[in-house]
């Protein structure tokens, strides 16, 4: 769902509604204690679980300095002690895939390739099992809205980290295939191009910092865009 699908009669996008969200984690009951079990579970786990292990965990207890951008890579490094596999899994860029199903296939490809490399790999026992989780997301309107990019720039410093998760991280799933976020998507509807700002936003790597840092970066880019305009 987009937050601003409709344009008014002048071709200007409708207001940008700031939404917020809350995630809740659920156990799926599936666990993997070896790489072979990880492969077997990846074949059958729900798309919601793939989503959780790439994106959802950003909103859950986790130290901010992440070493890997997804839970599969972290587990390979920390519990399976397979640095090679961890590095290969960490290269997966979720924005490159048009669907979660396509991402599942890429995960399987990497895991199966690794299983084929050494006879004993399927049987190495991890120090901790990989717990397959899934999540449910509740999205709600904060009542805050922006009619222009300038108004949005002024609002951004006040929004919550879960709002930034919704508009910047979750958007990648909702807008699948378009590799963008809600802000860029909205800006692209205006007659005056904001190509530079959109390019800066799309260059942000959101996986390694905290959501607070991500919010500050997005707010800073907006602020710089409009303070430059005023200077001209």
């Amino acid at each position: 769902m987009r937050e601003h699908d409709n344009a008014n009669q002048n071709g200007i996008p409708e207001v940008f509604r700031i939404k917020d969200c809350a995630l809740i984690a659920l156990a799926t009951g599936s666990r993997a204690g070896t790489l072979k079990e990880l492969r077997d579970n990846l074949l059958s786990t729900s798309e919601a679980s793939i989503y959780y292990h790439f994106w959802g965990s950003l909103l859950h207890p986790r130290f901010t300095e992440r070493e890997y951008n997804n839970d599969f890579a972290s587990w390979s490094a920390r519990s399976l002690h397979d640095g090679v596999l961890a590095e290969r899994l960490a290269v997966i860029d979720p924005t490159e895939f048009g669907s979660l199903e396509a991402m599942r296939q890429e995960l399987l490809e990497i895991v199966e390739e690794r299983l084929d490399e050494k006879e004993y790999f399927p049987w190495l026992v991890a120090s901790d099992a990989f717990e397959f989780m899934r999540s449910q997301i509740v999205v709600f309107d904060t009542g805050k809205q922006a009619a222009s990019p300038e108004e949005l720039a002024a609002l951004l410093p006040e929004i919550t980290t879960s709002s930034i998760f919704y508009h910047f991280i979750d958007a990648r799933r909702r807008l699948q295939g378009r590799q963008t976020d809600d802000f860029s998507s909205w800006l692209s509807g205006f007659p005056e191009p904001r190509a530079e700002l959109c390019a800066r936003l799309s260059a942000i790597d959101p996986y390694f910092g905290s959501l607070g840092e991500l919010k500050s970066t997005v707010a800073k880019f907006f602020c710089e865009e409009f303070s430059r305009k005023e200077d001209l």
Partner: protein
Amino acid sequence: MSPMLDAYADVVGQDVINHLRLLAQPLRDMRIVHVNSTRVGGGVAEILVKLVPLMQDLGINTSWEVIEGDDSFFQCTKGMHNALQGNRVKIPEHLLRVYERVNKENGEQLRGKLTEADFVFIHDPQPAPLLASCPNKKGKWVWRCHIDASHPYRPVWKYLREFVRGYDASIFSLADFAQTLPHPQYIIPPSIDPLSEKNAELPEETLHSVLDSFDLDPTRPLLVQISRFDRFKDPVGVIQAYQLVKKFVPGQQLVLAGGGATDDPEGESVIAEVRQAAGDDPDVHVLLLPPDSNRTVNALQRAATIVVQKSIKEGFGLTVTEAMWKGKPVIGGDTGGIRLQIINFNTGFRVKTPEGAALRIRYLLHQPALMATIGEKARQFVKENFLLTRHLREYLTLLLSLHYGGVERIELG
């Protein structure tokens, strides 16, 4: 505005409270009942005493009921508690019949209220059979398991599972603890209350008076482990670590503080082992604290240079959370929920042996600046993840999820 929500806003930030208000809006005026087996004492009561008024302040019609039972009932449920934690406790048939009878009697008392409620939270095994007393229930029922049930004693879990399987959902503290059940299993870690007596800020004078009362020297480093005297908490291992440290960095003091164990024969033998390991070292202080020692515990954690929680087996490890909230680096056993909280070099160190604990203590004592950085990161980590307001947010999210049919994505408004 509510004074209670305002007080939390001062600690966690107004945006967190605004977030809770927005989440609670669709639940306004719904009837929610929490049921447990004690009004005071124990972790569940400690959470409910704050959670219930906070939910009320958010406009949700929330109440808290406590079931009543006799000694035999609590003897049975204590056995269940231990069995869920993995002890091979065989509960006699006659006690199981008492458990069922007491729940039936309480069910008759509470039937009207529970049947009409939109949501019922049943905490832990004690009131689990109440569901059977409400065949015409209108709302959703959730079983909240606060216990580490990762490796339960199977015969007891098999018995309990029959009461729990009919619920609409269950909640476990960690994914590790979840059991196979025919309904959604939500994962909600526990939390600490930043405004409680155990965690609120304390004046310097209180710290000094507590240190004085135990003959502790405020000018020398202090290592503290707060835990009941239980082999799973490895108090003897902590003394061994302290002794190893003292060879390299003299002048350390060690406090091992926990509840008394007069009704627990194993606890008494552990204390005897601890005293023997401590020998006649005047710098090892073994403190048996009465149950209402929250302020003393708070002061000891705040006065500590480093907090240790060298558990061999642990549920979530809220004493780790408490110490981190006080800005202390924590050295914890590499087990259970401690793994979720302690991240090496960032919020403390996880260790597997007394030697490992000694190594990390020495390392930190030589790096006071790093200790301060770790302490600050630890406090921030708890602020973002393990305070009561996060716990409440997840309860509200769960309620919305159940209210809207448990679908993966719920769009409100």
